[in-house]
């Protein structure tokens, strides 16, 4: 309820507004509502997925012209306005994907540039394609049918749509889709390991966002009553983009407030109108340099309570069977004859390795001996030149890390890769993304399957947190945790996959002696539930305490393999690695 209250207050203020002010302010409020229809969709692209789409005005332009031209009937038979608005949404969805597609392959700055280039071109085409767009002279905007043909009626229409968009994007934000988008933004490598399909998810979001932007364009044309290419300056794009950043990434309320503020701001100081873009840009610079989290971060700071300073992580391994109830995995992971080099260096040089279910398998060796690279080969981040990895007799696809989650392989990272701005609970819930069954549309509209998915994921995440001993911190933002807690948090996230195999990359690094002991207990218990654990570690004590099997690597080759007792007595291992 507390989360919904600010939205209701904004809505109430918007409903009261026409009765206490004049037509001019209704016009401004209408404009803010239309902008928000676009920004709410763009927010999923920029604020959640972190894709720097700076030229989204192109889709507003596209929607405005599509609606106007369809309604005017110059090219096609005249189409009723509301139908034209829907058609514009369809066109916008398609072009949203066209504009967004490069994001799947290109790095940040490249993507920003392609959207910028697209924005430039759409305006040029509108200017040159005179037979359809009227060129520089422009076309008349559509007029909606009664009762939406008065300024008050139109305002209510836009407001209703804006409210609907708020509701839908907030639903998406608090679903597995919203969490996955943020994971792609802040922890892309981890997102792949969890099994999040980046391409499919981004295309969905671009479809949705493009449709909303084009519908906003149609409404914009109605509001302007006459459109020319001049109406769609890049300044508008800047306004949309900056509203999201000022509002704060990963928030819905923040960008909503920022959109209202940025729309209204120039009205209070008429001389500022010429300088408004300068003002927006200056604001952007200040935000980026001083408050990268935007309004949302400020609101969050105000709500913070101090954390207990001498808290301890107390795992409860006895709860593990509640998650890892799949029994013993039937077959091992097999690496056969794996060779991989970086440039001239052979990181792995003909390695055979068998990771048995239900056992803790230690992988040790000096720095640069190929431990993490071996882990990356299993997880699909590095493709071996020779040899391969199989599980259940079927090969694990090389170079496709997003396929590992479905095969029951989970991992943690040498440097914890978590979403700092999300809560501990959300960080764990994102680990269960592939278990969800509802579609994006079901989440947008809060249909029953969405609720079922959410309830299941939440329950499983809380159980995983109890297992690793972090349940007290569930609502806290992950960037406030201590380093050791992040390590246990990664394990909790990995447990969400109910993994048949769990690969841990130096989980004890940076932990205190007591924490290492508890970690050891937890890892052993995970293996006793039937999960195969591969443990890459430097702490020899931990390795010898909990491992059933140990493989020692040196220069990418197996130097020795056997039980801890055998390894401890192995002459070469002692001289090369352990020391006397």
């Amino acid at each position, binding site marked *: 309820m507390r989360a919904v209250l600010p939205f209701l207050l904004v809505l109430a203020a918007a409903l009261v507004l026409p009765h206490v002010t004049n037509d001019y302010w209704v016009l401004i409020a209408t404009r803010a509502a239309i902008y928000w229809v676009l920004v709410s969709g763009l927010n999923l692209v920029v604020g959640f997925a972190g894709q*720097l789409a*700076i030229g989204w005005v192109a889709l507003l332009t596209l929607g405005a012209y599509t609606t106007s031209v369809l309604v005017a009937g110059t090219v096609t038979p005249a189409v009723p306005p509301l139908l034209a608005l829907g058609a514009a949404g369809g066109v916008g969805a398609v072009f949203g994907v066209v504009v967004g597609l*490069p994001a799947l*392959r*290109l*790095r*940040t*700055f*490249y993507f*920003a*540039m*392609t959207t*910028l*280039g*697209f924005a*430039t*071109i759409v305006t*040029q*085409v509108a*200017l*040159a*394609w005179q037979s359809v767009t009227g060129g520089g002279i422009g076309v008349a905007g559509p007029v909606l049918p009664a009762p939406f043909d008065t300024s008050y009626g139109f305002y209510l229409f836009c407001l209703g749509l804006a409210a609907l968009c708020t509701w839908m994007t907030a639903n998406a934000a608090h679903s597995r889709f919203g969490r996955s988008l943020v994971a792609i933004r802040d922890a892309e*490598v981890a997102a792949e390991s969890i099994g999040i399909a980046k391409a499919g998810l981004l295309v969905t979001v671009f479809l949705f966002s493009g449709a909303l932007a084009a519908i906003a364009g149609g409404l914009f044309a109605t509001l302007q009553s006459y459109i020319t290419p001049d109406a769609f300056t*890049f300044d508008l794009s*800047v306004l949309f983009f900056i509203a999201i*950043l000022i509002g704060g990434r990963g928030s819905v309320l923040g960008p909503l407030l920022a959109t209202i503020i940025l729309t209204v701001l120039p009205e209070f100081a008429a001389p500022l109108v*010429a*300088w408004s*873009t*300068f003002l*927006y*840009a*200056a604001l*952007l*610079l200040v935000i*980026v*340099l001083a408050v*990268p989290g935007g309004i949302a971060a400020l609101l969050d700071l105000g709500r913070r309570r101090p954390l207990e300073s001498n808290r301890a992580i107390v795992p409860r391994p006895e709860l593990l069977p509640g998650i890892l109830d799949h029994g013993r995995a039937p077959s091992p992971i097999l690496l056969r004859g794996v060779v991989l080099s*970086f440039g001239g260096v052979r990181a792995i040089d003909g390695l055979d390795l068998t990771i048995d279910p239900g056992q803790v398998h230690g992988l040790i060796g000096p720095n640069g001996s190929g431990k*993490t690279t071996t882990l*990356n080969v299993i*997880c699909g*981040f*590095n493709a071996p030149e020779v040899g391969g990895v199989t599980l259940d007799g079927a090969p694990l696809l090389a170079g496709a890390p997003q396929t590992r989650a479905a095969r029951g392989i989970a991992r943690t*990272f040498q440097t914890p890769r978590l979403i700092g701005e999300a809560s501990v609970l959300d960080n764990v819930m994102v680990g269960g993304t592939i278990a969800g069954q509802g579609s994006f549309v079901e989440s947008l509209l809060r249909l029953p399957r969405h609720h079922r998915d959410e309830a299941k994921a939440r329950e499983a995440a809380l159980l995983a947190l109890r297992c690793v001993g972090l349940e007290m911190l569930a609502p806290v933002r992950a960037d406030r945790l201590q380093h050791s807690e992040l390590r246990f948090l990664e394990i909790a996230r990995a447990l969400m996959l109910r993994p048949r195999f769990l690969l841990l990359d130096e989980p004890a690094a940076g932990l205190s002696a007591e924490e290492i002991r508890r970690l050891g207990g937890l890892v052993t218990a995970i293996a006793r539930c039937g999960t195969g654990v591969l443990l890459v570690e430097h702490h020899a004590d931990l390795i010898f305490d909990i491992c059933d099997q140990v493989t020692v690597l040196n220069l990418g080759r197996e130097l020795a393999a056997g039980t801890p007792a055998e390894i401890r007595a192995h002459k070469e291992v002692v001289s090369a690695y352990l020391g006397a």
Partner: protein
Amino acid sequence: MLAAILASGLAVGAVYALIGVTYNVMFSASRVMSFTSGQLGMLGGVLGAMFIARLGLPSLLGLAATLACCAAVGVLTEIVAVRPVLKSLEQHLYVLSTLALALMIQQVTAIEWSTEPQPFPRLFGIGDGGPTDEKFWLPLLACAVVVVGLELLYRRTLVGRAFLAIAEDNFAARALGLPERNLRMASYALAGVIGGLAGFASGQLLLAFFANGSMLNFYGFVPVALGGMGNNRGAIASGLALGVFQQAANFLVGGVFASVAVFTVFIVVLLVAPQGLMGSPSVRRV
């Protein structure tokens, strides 16, 4: 017609190439792609027209003043928009901070200078608008000067070698005791000079117009993307090719479709070869 296409194509291509080099010089020093690169080109034209046509300075003095101002803008970029976000490079905040600064520069120019394209003064008075007119060969001359100048700087001077060292391995260069911050500021000043020179030399071709900034931002970035980040030779070759391609398309199918064609080629090439045609593959992620 072929002569006209080649003359104007190579001329605008030289400008794109120089803006590409501007991007590259900044990138080499800091691993940052800056949206102010195109604005520097725009400022070269606007400031040149202001100093020479409006304030009546002699051409040479006007050029010197323009380059000095652009160098200052380069340094300003480093201090305001780059240095504060260098610590968190992986968050790509520089995209936003340099975009903000670029928009501010553009908006101030629009308000204080003019929102209409203004003529740029004739410098030598050579040519009559045909393919041998100075407006066509000045950008090429500037491009040649920059290529030779950079080559001499990087190969013959200690400062140039230090630039290369920083570009190659920032940490190692600092460990050797190189004054990394000063060298970075010097690089940004150098980038400012190159961008300003591009704008000054192409003033008669592109006019002194505030909106050239975002245009050059895009068309100057295309050669960088095609040639590979930080690769100056790639940028020059791709820039000239881009100019000729664009002008040819311009003559053959008309202005709008020329820009659509450039955009399409840009996207297609990037999707096929995200590292650019001459770039190197990306580093490992885990």
